[in-house]
């Protein structure tokens, strides 16, 4: 990719015309002017809020501060020590990590499995599969969550009927309720994974596969020796994105529990949100948000490594 950005004239033309050189070179200011608006807006809507949430996490910011003219007092690490001492927070962290692992594991294995299946079916079946997956992809999460809430409704839900469970309540046991939430996440995430992975599979060089087969490689050897290495970069990115999305899962659980998830349903995002929204504990909630971002950085270390590689390739 790096060659694309070289001063292209020098590279592709044996004898550069004076005009082309004049037009290409002496414009050091133009790219800066072009990124300036984006830079300004992203600083205003992302950079500044991120900085502020860090500052907030060191402040006492509660109901008292809303009605007072004095600025919020700095309390040092108090919000953070409160987090570390709060057993609820730690169960929330563990729950979030487990849920993320299950959601990512399920959606990746199902998603990649379906992509491989799509390679092996005739075109018309693939067309039907793609259509159905894209429809699911397009459904907004608040809609899909309501659909699943209706399908798992205790008395008239279609799921209880199909599974022959009578009037089973899926939500008294948070484990089952979170299983439903996982189902919603997987249902919504698989289409993206399958479509992207299938696109990558079609890019695997056919000559390589042919050559390997001529040399007597079996299906398994071709898959692990050629297919998998070729689609690996795509798989890494898709996995990383899934981790990021699932780690900050909010809508599917929050809406499923009608905007009032009991403590055993809370993930990090929901916990931070409830602290801020209902408790008006903005300082504490900010500290939770900062810890969430830090944990996210740790679990998405692969993505960041890929980023750095990308940066080097540039």
């Amino acid at each position, binding site marked *: *990719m790096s060659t*694309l950005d070289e001063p*292209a004239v020098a590279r592709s033309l044996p004898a550069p015309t004076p005009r*082309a050189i004049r037009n*290409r070179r002496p414009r050091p200011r133009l790219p*800066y002017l*072009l*990124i300036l*608006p*984006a*830079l300004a*807006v*992203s600083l205003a*809507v*992302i950079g500044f*809020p*991120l900085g*502020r949430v860090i500052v*907030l996490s060191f402040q006492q*910011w509660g109901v008292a501060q809303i009605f007072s003219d004095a600025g919020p007092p700095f309390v040092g690490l108090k919000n953070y020590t409160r987090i570390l001492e709060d057993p609820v927070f730690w169960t929330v962290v563990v729950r979030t990590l487990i849920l993320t692992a299950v959601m990512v594991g399920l959606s990746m294995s199902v998603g990649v499995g379906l992509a491989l299946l799509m390679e*092996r*079916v005739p075109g018309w*079946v693939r067309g039907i*599969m793609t259509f*159905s*997956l*894209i*429809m699911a*992809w*397009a*459904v*907004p999460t608040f*809609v899909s969550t*309501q*659909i*699943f809430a*209706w*399908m798992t409704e205790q008395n*008239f839900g279609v799921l209880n*009927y199909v599974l022959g469970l009578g009037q089973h309540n899926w939500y008294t046991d948070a484990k089952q309720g979170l299983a439903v939430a996982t189902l919603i996440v997987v249902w919504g995430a698989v289409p993206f994974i399958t*479509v*992207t992975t299938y696109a990558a599979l079609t890019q695997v060089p056919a000559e390589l596969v042919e050559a390997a087969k001529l040399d007597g490689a079996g299906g398994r050897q071709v898959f692990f020796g050629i297919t998998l290495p070729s689609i690996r970069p795509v798989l890494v990115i898709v996995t990383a994105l899934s981790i*990021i999305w699932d780690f900050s899962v*909010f809508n599917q659980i929050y*809406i499923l529990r*009608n*905007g009032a998830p009991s403590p055993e349903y809370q993930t990090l*995002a929901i916990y931070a*949100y409830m602290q*801020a929204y209902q408790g008006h504990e*903005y300082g504490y*909630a900010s500290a939770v*948000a900062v810890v*969430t*971002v830090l944990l*996210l950085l740790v679990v998405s270390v692969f993505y960041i490594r890929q*980023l750095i590689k*990308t*940066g080097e390739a*540039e």
Partner: protein
Amino acid sequence: MRRAVRIGYSALGLLVAAVWAFPIYWMVSTAFKSGRDMYSATPQFVPLHPTGHNFAEVFGDSTFWQAAVNSLIATVLTVVLAMAVAFAAAVAVARFRFFGRRTFLMSILIMKMVPSIALVIPIFLTLTEIQDASLGALQLTDAVPGLVIAYLAFALPFAVWALRGFVLGVPPELEEAAMIDGCSQVQAFRRVTLPLIVPGLVATSIFTMILAWNEYLLTYFLISSPEKYTLPLWLSHFVTTEGTSFGPLMAGATIIAAPVAIFFMFVQRNLARGLTAGAVRG
């Protein structure tokens, strides 16, 4: 491949398609059922007495139209602002080599990672303070313009990254050829590259539009008055402590999701190309 295996794969593929489509089918078919047919001991897999009653209830509700207008305004403003700003930046990073370029690209990718929850608290407090400082002259919290500011936080990084992929997809040699034929660089860009990027611009706009149209968390935090609701928030008013009216809820959900699905069908293929170009080839 043996014939039996091939038929097995096809059957499995069709089963998967059916399972994935079922929730959507269930939403639409519920929307067309009367209360009696919805709440029957044996679910009706095909509506036996289809009725437009639920849709009539949604369309007859003035708050639905108000929410639709709010959604439309917030979405259009977000798309226009994000696209204008992002397109310039995408051209800069895809076509120029300059000091700080890599840092800018990395920060865009990092921004894509930041979860909404980390942004919503400071955005809310800052908007409140600006509003107070202007003595209420600038209405930003519980107002659509404030929403647009919040939406840009996720729309902008996405749009920059996607558009960059599309600009990279047009070989600079084409522009150079036009320049040798006497075009200035700006002319070459406008006459050669721009027309080739149009599909990418359309795909990115539509996807940004879908992101804004579907946004829930930020809106829920920033908006409190019912007359300022967007459609996703409006939909949740069918959920009350006494229970959920799933009939009109499913009709509303169908109406809100339909434009998304239609637009998505159009741009999906194009978008996958732009995103993988950006994400994979780096």
